């Protein structure tokens, strides 16, 4: 228990209840924006339905990092609790979306999203 506490203390920002500067916060926001943009590019370019949903999970992840960073910046746990709800929505979305993907696969024997182009109005 003690070694674990020491480990997290070394790993964590050592001055936890202390101030986090806006410049440090900005680092985390940029990382989160990078992840989000990569997820977005993946969602647009990939044609495999499963990968497309994986890319939405990537975007959820980016939002989570931004929420936790703001939570640390404001020394407030609300951002962290929000990530719990992000996880919940991600789990629900994964269950429904993957069930849909399996349905679509059974119909066309293929995961290609462009096979469903006749859906467009």
């Amino acid at each position, binding site marked *: 228990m003690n070694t674990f506490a020491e480990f*997290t203390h070394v*790993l*964590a*920002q050592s001055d*936890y*209840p202390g*101030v986090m*500067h*806006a*410049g*440090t*916060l*900005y*680092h*985390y926001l*940029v*990382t989160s*924006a990078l*992840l989000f*943009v990569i*997820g*977005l*590019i993946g969602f*647009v*370019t990939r*044609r495999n339905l*499963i*990968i497309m949903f*994986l890319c939405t*999970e990537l975007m959820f*992840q980016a939002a989570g*990092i931004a929420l*936790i*960073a703001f*939570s640390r910046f*404001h*020394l*407030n*746990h*609300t951002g*962290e*609790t929000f*990530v*719990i*709800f992000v*996880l*919940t929505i991600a*789990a*629900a*979305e*994964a*269950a*429904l979306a*993957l069930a849909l993907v*399996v*349905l679509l696969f059974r*119909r*066309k*024997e293929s995961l*290609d999203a462009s096979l469903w182009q006749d859906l467009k109005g």
Partner: protein
Amino acid sequence: MSRSGFDVLRPGEHAIFHRSHPLLSSTDPSRSTRILRPLFFPFLSVIAEPQALPELVQPILLYIGCALGALGVTLALPRRGTSPQVVGGLIVGAAVGAIFLAMGLANVDRLPNINFYVFSFIAVGAALRVVSHPRPVYSALYFILTILASSGLYVILAAEFMAFALIIVYAGAILITYLFVIMLATESPTEEQEEALQEYDRYSREPLAATIVGFVLLATLTTIMANGSSQLVQAPGIKGYEIASQKVNLGSGEMDDTHRISPFVAATIRADRPMSLRVRAARGSEVIDLDPNTLETGMPIKLEPGENSIAVPFVGMSDEQAARLDVWFTPASAGDLELLAQLPGRLKSGMSEARSADNPKIPLMREDEWVRSIDLSSRTVTLTNHTDTIRVVPLPADLEVNNVEGVAFTLLNEHPGAIEIAGVILLMAMLGAVVLARKKVEMDDAAKFAAQQRSLVVVDAGPVAPSGGITSASSGGKS
């Protein structure tokens, strides 16, 4: 008289009726435009306030990094012909390095923890591999790597509970579901043909246009974020916890002929950042409603930095009535300040059971004492009693509020409705998944035909008669 965070006006001292009082505070139009302008006209505000961006990041390096990143991601995405994925990955690495360098140069004296760079590079690199790897199983495995790296970022940000929850829920549960579906929804390779990549996995759709749009979005986002973050008010850091709400003496203001109106209760409170306070009044154990025209019980009062006095009017109450009131101020949204103010039970019982470190037979807290505040930096507890005698004792190690406790209390205390909604959503998702899974689906005519063609080709190559081939093809199409 100055006692940890609160100064109390003695009777006879005059309080200033301050403009931060909700009755007097007016909506400041310039403030709303100041907030809205960067939202609606990002580029205008960048031009108008050119110093906002260089405060946090070197703009030229940042935009060079964005352009490089766009080039690298375009090269890394799978495409027709030879796709130079390794070169693309290296260019993206250089781009991320340039962006971090741009941020580091602007904040040399407040760089983040060194582990931040490690975890960020791993997260971004693995994310790039998620979108660029042609095999879906590897994409899912690289996504797990992204999850692990971002949970490392969570630990750096002192969110230990969410870090572990992320690994358990995402890497443990959601990604396993993904892997299952990837296995379910790919055709198993036959013995003759080795496992071939599907056409839709080998070529991506419009990689150049998507990447350019994506990185223009990134450049705009980082620019606007720099403007926004430089305007954020920094939290001062939790120095301690105020346990007991502060009782405030009643000011003896002007009295009119009828002796009915006690003008206000006043206290001066030091504020080093904007905070809101709740005012509660109680007579004995009964909490009373104050006049709704002036002040409702529990109504927050805004306090701006540097403004250090506050006044609470009681209209329609005699001095005697007012004198019997216990009025106190509680910080309404000061993060953990409020959190601990709502956990007195645990601390009270914990402190009353705590024993002195020197002699385990002596209780830490005397019978007539209660906890006033906790100082986190020196790990001490300030105790007080009815005669305002103050005694400082060391904080027992098991009474510290950790991250799990903080998250749990915020969750249950501030978002109970959201928990219910999340439960309903999960239930609906479960029902929906069951309904979808039980639905019978007929294969498309085109897909059926294609499957028949495929099995016919296989059969023709073999020594089996054509008639047997057709029956096996139709049965294979149904399965």
